[in-house]
């Protein structure tokens, strides 16, 4: 196979704009899969991904396509579609020479599409714009075409019209991939440099890493080195990715493949790392490598205190195939022993919680998530103290200042909702940095905003105030000084550490009040009165009273009532099992996340 017959590309699209369906059509059209093997959304193979309709872990697949008498090798590199995974997206893009920019002809360009498009342009990818779902009655191709032209400065005739659902335009897309996307460039004789853009955990074979050979070639059996981690392995098996893996003796320059080398843990393989030959190493690693850092932290505790060791074992297993999950033991006066876990974002946190439940049958309590703060003490004003947990919040009198992480948030919405989005962003301590009308109807707004505000119900509220017509993306932009306070919650005068939250002083009274109100709603009435208080230090800032339960019996219990009543009480008892007793108060799981749902 010659380098000039290789095309490496990815698909940039917003969730639901038809990326997975388009991928399916490309695979069918190139006969990479037979009808028998056809499954909808072929590239997503975790149950969870299928249910949520998002691609969490990226994969790659190789197709052969005949054009003008030449057989081309097309490597389609799939990219994750959520902001939590933006670093992985950047590495997948770095492995490509071109990208299909897929835009829904009815919905137009969304924030996520734009941020990924910018990433692709940064890497000089050839962009092939594709207008998808043109068959929909609600399609508005002319307007969306204008948006695309504005955005990437292409000619109208460069935009391909397609319907992945009906198969319209698939052939044009494949032809454009061959004609417009350049073949990879690289030196076949140089020392090996292969870029790892993804990895998955296979319980039988260990870690499978996916790479693109940038220079040189990789041979089966040779000793290789991962340049950033410094580890050495043997390339026990290498190959290309068809519908399944097909092993090869060698993968040449410009091509995409997989390597299996007996690695047991995901954390040994870092996305963005460079594979080189041990005997003849490259002088430098490929640029752009970053250690992925967790952005959001929360405590995870077993509902049953005796399941602590089981929880540890489950988290360890999860970490085998999800290196971005971090955890360390912590203890809470209210909840006992658990783990402080780090996640890439809120979606990642939800996924971990769901996987614990589904794959390990672990029922857990998740505490209020927070970001990572830096505290600088008066004594040592130059050394930062990392605060990943409200319980680590230093004594305010001894603290010189505190910093919190900020993000650049991009929001694209209909012009009608600009006011509402602006109000929300300001409430969330956002500062408008830029506002651009993409068309007369669609506006792109850029804000500087504390990451912590995104953690607290920002995304849900954005969707609801814009009736779904707002898309959102963000990137971290470093730390800024901030005035944070710790809001504690007390039940009948007893502080419940697991309910504490770090909140900006300007919002603290309001949020303290809302926390109390929400807890009143979520904690079931018990046989005694419960005082719910929020406090900053010794100062009480809000109070609610949950009156005592005075009656817990139905008046009638005759022949026709017994079955129904038994089932009802069994259900109640099951609900009680998921509650945690703190002092003498029983607290349901969802109360620990009350602070996230203050506006529901």
């Amino acid at each position, binding site marked *: 196979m010659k380098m000039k017959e290789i095309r490496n590309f990815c698909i940039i699209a917003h969730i639901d704009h038809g990326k997975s369906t388009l991928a399916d059509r490309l695979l069918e059209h190139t006969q990479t899969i037979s009808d028998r093997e056809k499954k909808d959304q072929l590239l997503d193979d975790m149950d969870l991904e299928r249910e949520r309709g998002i691609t969490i872990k990226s994969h790659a697949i190789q197709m052969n396509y005949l054009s003008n008498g030449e057989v081309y090798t097309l490597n389609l590199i799939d990219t994750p579609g959520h902001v939590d995974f933006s670093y992985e997206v950047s590495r997948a893009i770095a492995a490509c020479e071109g990208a299909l920019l897929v835009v829904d002809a009815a919905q137009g360009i969304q924030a996520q599409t734009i941020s990924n498009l910018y990433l692709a342009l940064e890497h000089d990818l050839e962009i092939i714009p594709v207008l998808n779902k043109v068959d929909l009655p609600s399609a508005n191709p002319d307007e969306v075409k204008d948006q695309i032209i504005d955005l990437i400065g292409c000619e109208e005739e460069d935009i391909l019209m397609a319907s992945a659902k009906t198969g319209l335009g698939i052939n044009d897309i494949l032809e454009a991939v061959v004609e417009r996307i350049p073949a990879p460039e690289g030196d076949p004789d140089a020392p090996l440099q292969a870029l790892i853009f993804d990895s998955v955990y296979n319980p039988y074979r260990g870690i499978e890493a996916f790479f693109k050979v940038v220079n040189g070639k990789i041979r089966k059996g040779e000793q290789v080195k991962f340049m950033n981690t410094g580890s050495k392995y043997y390339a026990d098996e290498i190959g290309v990715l068809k519908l399944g893996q097909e092993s090869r003796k060698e993968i040449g320059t410009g091509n995409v493949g997989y390597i299996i080398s007996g690695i047991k843990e995901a954390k040994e393989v870092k996305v963005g790392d460079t594979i080189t030959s041990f005997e003849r190493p490259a002088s430098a690693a490929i640029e752009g490598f970053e250690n992925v850092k967790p952005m959001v932290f929360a405590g995870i505790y077993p509902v049953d205190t005796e399941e602590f060791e089981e929880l540890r074992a489950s988290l360890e297993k999860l970490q085998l195939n999800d290196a971005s999950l971090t955890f360390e033991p912590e203890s809470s006066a209210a909840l006992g022993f658990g783990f402080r876990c780090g996640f890439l974002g809120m979606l990642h946190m939800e996924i971990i919680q769901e996987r614990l439940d589904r794959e390990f049958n672990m029922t857990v309590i998740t505490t209020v998530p927070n970001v990572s703060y830096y505290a600088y003490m008066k004594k040592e004003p130059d050394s930062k103290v990392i605060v990943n947990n409200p319980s680590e919040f230093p004594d305010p009198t001894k603290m010189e200042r505190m910093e919190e992480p900020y993000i650049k948030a991009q929001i694209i919405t209909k012009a009608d909702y600009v006011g509402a989005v602006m109000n929300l962003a300001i409430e969330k301590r956002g500062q408008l940095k830029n506002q651009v009308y993409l068309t007369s109807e669609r506006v792109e707004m850029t804000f500087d905003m504390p990451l912590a505000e995104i953690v607290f119900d920002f995304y849900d509220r954005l969707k609801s105030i814009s009736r779904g017509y707002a898309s959102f993306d963000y990137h971290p932009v470093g730390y800024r000084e901030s005035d944070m306070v710790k809001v504690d919650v007390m039940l009948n005068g007893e502080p419940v550490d697991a309910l504490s939250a770090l909140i900006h002083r300007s919002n603290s009274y309001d949020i303290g009040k809302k926390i109390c109100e929400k807890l009143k709603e979520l904690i079931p009435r018990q046989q005694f009165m419960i005082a719910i208080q929020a406090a900053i230090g010794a100062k009480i800032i809000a109070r609610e009273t949950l009156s005592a339960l*005075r009656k*817990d*019996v139905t*008046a009638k*219990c005759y022949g*026709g009532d017994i079955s129904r009543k038994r089932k009802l009480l*069994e259900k109640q008892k099951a609900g009680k099992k998921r509650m945690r007793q703190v002092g003498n108060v029983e607290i349901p799981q969802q109360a620990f996340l009350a602070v996230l749902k203050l506006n529901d």
Partner: protein
Amino acid sequence: MKEPLSEFFYQSFHSLAGAYIHIPFCKQACIYCDFHFSTLEKDRGAMTMAIIKEAQLRKDFLPQQALKSIYFGGGTPSVVPIADIEKIIEALDNLYGIDASAEITLEANPDDLNEAYLTELSRSPVNRLSIGIQSFKEADLSFMNRAHSAKEAIGCLESLAKYGFDNYSIDLIYGLPNQSPEDWLWQMEHLKTFDIPHFSAYALTVESKTKLAYLQAKGAVELKDENAAKHFELLQDFAKKEGYEHYELSNFARPGKRAVHNGSYWEGTAYLGLGPSAHSYNGKERSWNVANNALYLKALEQDGLALEKEILEEKDRFNEMLMTRLRLLEGISEREINSFSPVFQRHWLKESRKLLATGKLVQFSEGYRIPSEWRFFSDGIAADLFYT
């Protein structure tokens, strides 16, 4: 595998069984009621024949022994002619036999209990009445959309003695919106005035799909548990002072006047339920007829049954035992707990210990019961003891 049936069990199910007959007709709908009924007059004749046919088709459901109780409930059984009630009793006598001392109860509303009706009833085999008085106050009755007036309530109680009915019960409802403790005490005074032998007092409960639920959701009616709890306390004091046994959560009797038929629900003995929506139980399974008059009649027209059933596992029986016995003054007997498999006995030991420690459960010579101050929490306490 055959489940080990304990001695206790055999004893329960070889003791006498009862029959419940659901008469699914009413003059009008009370705002709180979620029982099955129709206010249409059609089908009333056909229903009697269908119920008799159902009794014949299900002859083998109960052990072949004389019935110890028959209960006509509803709906409003007093809206059908007494001749129909007698036909059903006769059919049951032919199928099972009726014990000489059997309790035969008819639910009736005050507006139906006129002199002519009572005359006819006094000549029938019916020997106990359960009268839906609910309140002696006109405003309460109209709020609840009852068919009778306060005057009719008083009038029927005055007539009962005249016709020789000394075994009867009345229903009262407390915890009504705007009902003060004084109102409720005034209601209970009537029990004394008429020397009522048995009464049921129910806390007004909002059942889904009732007019009351609608009014509550709309905010037109507000029910407070605090009021119900206060009234329940007054009720307990009243019963104690006036010599009523508070033998079941909502039932009170002069000694010797406890309800026999309803006791079978709380004591776990067998009962056959006939008519639309009626439930049956024979120790192993519970079944229930479709809650729809037309479907019920249609099935029986074709000699079939419109019946659903569930088989009760030991766990279900254990939980039901807790749920029903803990409503009783006598509570749960040690003997009955020991009739369950060892795993349930161990479970009981472990879970009951916690409740004994908090005083929500007390032990006495024959068993365990919920003390009076915790009786208004019986369901929650039973659920704490459930085996899941």
